[in-house]
């Protein structure tokens, strides 16, 4: 019993099952040397060519040099794309692909300048390079399998498996094609240099160059080249194999050379075998010795409708139209144009498609060369297809199931092992396009498998969502219960509340008097500070008002559970209406309410995240209390309660940081809107400049207090900081949904970071908002009241039933304003 190596050295061959002997017709194109065609005017370079994604490195209008890198990427299968010639990039657009589907793919259109100027090339000596450097160079040269499958070569050459045998595939079993034949005859030494590099990378025990016996010249040339090469003696040999289609298939070739079968669903490297095409070996040589990327290949133009059939070096990306014009293509009326050979090639209907790395042949047969279109007839189960099948499948069973769209049954007949060689269709007496059925079945199976994965994911997501909603519901109920209990407790100690409120008010007043430089609370107020003082104060005031309003509103919305607070709320509103002249005190009250709320919130937070300081803070304020107004206290209590409740609700969210930017942004909008509103009614109201001044001061004070507080908390507990935006957020929004991801942050950033555009947007938004408000106002019965105190009036109506139309209009207007801002940003 001989070992496999001895068998290999002897040149023993095994039988591959099935197979057919179609007319070869190679003499059409293998008589002349490979020549060059004049450069095409335009080139179509699809991106990416191999791999899923790539990033473009060039832009329309840019000039590129021959061999220049056009893309970068980092997918597993990614291969870089290079410019096939020098010229200008005129367009980047989807162009019909050189693919059986003809679907458009993104392509770079390069207008050749005719100079064909190379970019800087890094020639190197392979002996000075390490393995990884060689692999990197092969990858950077964009070398993929040239046999048609275009699998990245560097992956094959960088396999983790121990490689014992490398088979150089020069079989070229498809009829008509002679590209590899001519390449071996004319460039055997270059191919051998490429093989030397492969040998260095994989260090196999044997290298077999397999050539079919219908190419004796090529076999001779390769044999000679081996004797002149630097490869270890007796490690490399040419094995001539009998001509049979599809001996050139990777799996079939391995079976013929070694007698082994590649297990289903595995790669040959599992057997310690790597198969490389001769064209690939040539390209490796070019890439290492000359630094040339893979930007041209030999393409066979053949068929009786081509007047100058032969092999041509064509830059990758050459439109097939351009090449066909130069080889004397005369189409017949029922012309088929086939990319690849007649057995496995695909027909294209548009010739303005590029030559790709795997395009080895363009076949333009006359009508008598190929079989006419025959109607499919009934399968008579003659079994000829099973005899011809090199994969030992039962094609007629596969067909039966594929036609009935029972794809899972077809899969049980090992459909996935079909190599689509076309032998079964070739021998079929009933003219059934079997391979087409298998391809459809295969893609259907693939899609079904993908859909199954997706359905599984959807199910998981759905279940996760249900679980989350359930959890939220439970949490909400628990909080609501806790809040209700707390509220009852608070009712009993209303004195304490009043004390707290008063304390807060005093703190606010103090802060206002100190007139310190305003400490930014958040990015929003930061922006505000940079603008005019008037505006700033107005904005701050607006924020304060908005917050108060919102709080009041929230309180009211929960009125059913909180009768008392809602009463307090309405009292507060009445107060606002009545004491129009005492603007100062009113503002004070609001400020107090806000401050109170903060205190309350702090207390609440302390319960959740125990903080000694915060508790101290509250108690300190309580001691410096100055009881003044019961009503005020009540208002404050109501607002505080509402806030506490909000805090509870939002507290269930676990992702405070994500929400923050959104919140900030919304504050801006609300604030800016209110800026205008507050300013506008001023003209018609009794509120004078001093009022405004005071308001501003109060607002400042609030901001100051907030800043101080947040600073204090910052010092002690970092965790609290996270809670803070949550809390303030609750002032603005009712029901903020929790989203899993936030892409929109950038939008918020844009608005925030560009004050000028921001302003434009704000004005637009504000006008819209104002209009909406005006609409409301005209509808109101208390028109006089509205004029006398527009601001509080607006508040009143906000808290009352709001017209839905107006709301939506406002929302749309806001969105438009946002868009405007974005567009303005883009233009700049």
């Amino acid at each position: 019993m001989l070992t496999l190596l001895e068998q290999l050295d002897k040149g023993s061959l095994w039988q591959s099952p099935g197979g057919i002997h179609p007319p070869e017709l190679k003499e059409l194109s293998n008589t002349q040397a490979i020549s060059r065609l004049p450069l095409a005017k335009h080139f179509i370079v699809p991106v990416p060519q191999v791999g899923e994604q790539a990033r473009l490195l060039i832009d329309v209008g840019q000039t590129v040099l021959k061999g220049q890198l056009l893309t970068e990427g980092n997918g597993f299968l990614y291969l870089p794309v290079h410019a096939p010639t020098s010229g200008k990039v005129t367009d980047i657009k989807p162009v019909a692909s050189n693919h059986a589907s003809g679907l458009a793919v993104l392509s770079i259109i390069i207008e050749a300048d005719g100079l064909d100027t190379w970019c800087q090339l890094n020639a190197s000596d392979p002996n000075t390079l390490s393995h990884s450097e060689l692999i990197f160079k092969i990858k950077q040269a964009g070398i993929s399998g040239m046999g048609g499958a275009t699998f990245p070569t560097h992956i094959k050459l960088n396999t983790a498996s121990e490689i014992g045998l490398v088979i150089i595939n020069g079989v070229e079993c498809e009829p008509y094609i002679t590209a590899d034949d001519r390449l071996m005859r004319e460039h055997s030494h270059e191919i051998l240099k490429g093989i030397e590099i492969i040998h260095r990378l994989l260090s196999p025990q044997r290298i077999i160059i397999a050539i079919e016996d219908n190419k004796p010249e090529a076999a001779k040339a390769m044999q000679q080249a081996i004797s002149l090469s630097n490869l270890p003696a007796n490690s490399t040999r040419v094995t001539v194999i009998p001509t049979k289609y599809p001996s050139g298939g990777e799996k079939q070739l391995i079976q013929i050379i070694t007698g082994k079968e590649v297990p289903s669903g595995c790669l040959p490297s599992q057997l310690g075998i790597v198969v490389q095409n001769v064209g690939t070996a040539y390209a490796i040589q070019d890439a290492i010795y000359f630094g040339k990327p893979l930007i041209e290949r030999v393409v066979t133009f053949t068929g009786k409708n081509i007047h100058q059939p032969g092999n041509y070096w064509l830059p990758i990306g050459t439109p097939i139209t351009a090449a066909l014009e130069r080889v004397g293509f005369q189409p017949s009326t029922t012309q088929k144009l086939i990319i690849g050979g007649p057995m496995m090639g695909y027909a294209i209907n548009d010739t303005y498609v590029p030559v790709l790395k795997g395009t080895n042949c363009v076949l333009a047969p006359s009508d008598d060369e190929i079989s006419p279109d025959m109607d499919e007839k009934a399968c008579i189960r003659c079994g000829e297809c099973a005899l011809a099948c090199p994969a030992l499948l039962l094609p007629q069973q596969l067909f039966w199931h594929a036609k009935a769209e029972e794809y899972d049954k077809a899969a049980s007949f090992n459909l996935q092992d079909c190599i689509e060689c076309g032998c079964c269709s070739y021998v079929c007496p009933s003219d059934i396009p079997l391979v087409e059925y298998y391809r459809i079945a295969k893609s259907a199976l693939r899609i079904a498998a993908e859909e199954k994965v997706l359905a599984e994911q959807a199910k998981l997501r759905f279940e996760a969502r249900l679980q989350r909603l359930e959890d939220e519901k439970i949490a909400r109920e628990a909080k609501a219960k806790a809040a209700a209990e707390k509220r009852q407790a608070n009712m009993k100690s209303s004195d304490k509340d009043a004390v707290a409120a008063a304390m807060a008010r005093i703190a606010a007043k103090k802060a206002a008097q100190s007139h310190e430089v305003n400490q930014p609370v958040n990015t929003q107020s930061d922006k505000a500070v940079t603008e005019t003082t008037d505006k700033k104060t107005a904005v701050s005031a607006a924020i304060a008002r908005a917050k108060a309003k919102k709080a009041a509103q929230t309180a009211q919305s929960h009125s059913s559970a909180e009768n008392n607070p809602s009463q307090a709320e309405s009292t507060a509103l009445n107060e606002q209406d009545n004491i129009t002249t005492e603007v100062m005190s009113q503002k004070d009250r609001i400020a107090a309410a806000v401050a109170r709320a903060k205190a309350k919130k702090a207390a609440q937070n302390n319960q959740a995240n125990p903080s000694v300081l915060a508790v101290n803070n509250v108690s300190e304020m309580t001691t410096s209390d100055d009881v003044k107004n019961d009503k005020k206290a009540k208002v404050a209590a109501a607002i505080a309660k509402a806030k506490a409740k909000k805090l509870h609700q939002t507290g269930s969210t676990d992702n405070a940081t994500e929400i923050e930017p959104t919140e900030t942004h919304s504050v801006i909008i609300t604030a800016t809107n209110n800026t205008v509103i507050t300013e506008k009614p001023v003209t018609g109201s009794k509120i004078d400049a001093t009022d405004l001044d005071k308001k501003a001061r109060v607002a400042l004070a609030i901001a100051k207090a907030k800043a101080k507080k947040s600073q204090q908390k910052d010092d002690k507990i970092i965790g609290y900081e996270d809670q803070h935006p949550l809390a303030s957020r609750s002032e603005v929004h009712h029901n903020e949904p929790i989203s899993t991801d936030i892409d929109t942050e950038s939008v918020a950033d844009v608005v925030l970071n560009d004050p000028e555009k921001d302003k434009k947007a704000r004005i637009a938004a504000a006008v819209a908002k104002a209009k909406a408000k005006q609409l409301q106002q005209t509808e109101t019965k208390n028109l006089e009241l509205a004029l006398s105190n527009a601001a509080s009036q607006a508040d009143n109506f906000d808290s009352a039933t709001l017209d839905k139309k107006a709301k939506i209009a406002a929302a749309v207007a806001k969105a438009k304003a946002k868009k405007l801002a974005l567009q303005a940003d883009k233009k700049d």
Partner: protein
Amino acid sequence: MITSIFVAVAVLTIVAIVFGIILGFAADKFKVEGNPIIDQVEALLPQTQCGQCGYPGCRPYAEAIANGDKVNKCPPGGTATMEKLAELMGVDPEPLNQEAQEAVKKVAYIREDECIGCTKCIQACPVDAIVGTGKLMHTVIAKDCTGCDLCVEPCPVDCIDMLPVQTTLKNWDWKLNAIPVTLVSDSQEEK
């Protein structure tokens, strides 16, 4: 005569007891936990969670089918799913009670310029495939979208479209006949 009747009764009684014991033993020994039919039915359903069947999700509908509900209430699954369900449940296939959706797979697409950030679609999405938050535009994670249509209705500004999934070289289905072919003679005449 009497004895033969007696013997017959006795034999039948013994047989009944023996088989009863066997059955009882089998029921205990080979007890099936849960209801595997529900899982099988669920595996056939398309998991769009669209609720068009009247149940809140695919699992509840699977349970309903296992309890004898009709199998023709799943428009996203189409006739193929209905037939599989009918086969599994051993019932006669029935036409879908709603017009079956076209075979084309679709995903939701939000025209982001028009989105007002109302979050209504986010709340409607059964598989959390929409991201965004209040007052900011939303967008659909196309790969997670099941094309259930549920987000289209709630959108106040109608900025959600159901777009067919684009065919690429990767998911092309090899249906050559679907490729539009212009005749050579036509194009020659043009020249």
